[in-house]
């Protein structure tokens, strides 16, 4: 039984930069897990990305504090993803988007991966927290 997808009333802006936290996050193994979890939830293949509101990484970090814990990230342009056959859906609450995939195959993973740049240093990273004793 799938959950209903509640899309935000939000069209894809002309300039939309989305990030995928982590530097290994687009490896086949990781994408396969993310796509499977997306499919189990909503019945479509895809994976999560986060919008950088107006290019403001501090704003992104306020909306998603987990961003401050990732040193590196990959980024893509929404228009490029859409033009290449990877529709973006405004799922959950902003700044969350889902990149939809035709199928969870290594070929599709490689194609979508080719539209992401990086990894780059995360401007919102606050440094590694102290280890637990």
């Amino acid at each position, binding site marked *: 039984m799938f959950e209903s997808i509640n899309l935000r009333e939000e069209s894809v802006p002309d300039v939309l930069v989305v990030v995928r936290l*982590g530097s290994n996050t687009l490896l086949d193994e*990781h994408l396969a897990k993310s796509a499977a*979890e997306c499919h189990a939830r909503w019945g479509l293949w895809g994976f999560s990305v986060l919008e950088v509101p107006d290019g403001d990484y501090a704003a992104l970090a306020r909306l998603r504090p987990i961003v401050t814990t990732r040193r590196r990230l990959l980024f893509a342009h929404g228009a490029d993803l859409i033009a290449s056959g990877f529709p973006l859906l405004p799922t959950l609450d902003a700044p969350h988007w889902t990149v939809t995939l035709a199928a969870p195959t290594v070929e599709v993973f490689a194609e979508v991966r080719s539209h992401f740049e990086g990894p780059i240093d995360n401007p919102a990273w606050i440094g590694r927290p102290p280890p637990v004793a």
Partner: protein
Amino acid sequence: MNGVAIELYDLWFDPNSVGGDMVVECWISHGPRADDPDFAPVPGDWLVLGDGDEAPLRARVLKRQGDRVSVQIQLGAESAAVA
């Protein structure tokens, strides 16, 4: 893609799916303890989450439905990262 050492953790998580409330759903079957018959988290348990990329983080179990475990990640100084 760099090769950060994968440290020991209980559940794999996708950091991109973590909500603003730091809650994320994880699948036991996607983590390193998928084949551990003794791994049976219940609400209130503290677990270690990893993404195979960065240092693992501590999280508390909120609910579990079979394979799926909802946890809330703690970023406080006393529990932020696991060495």
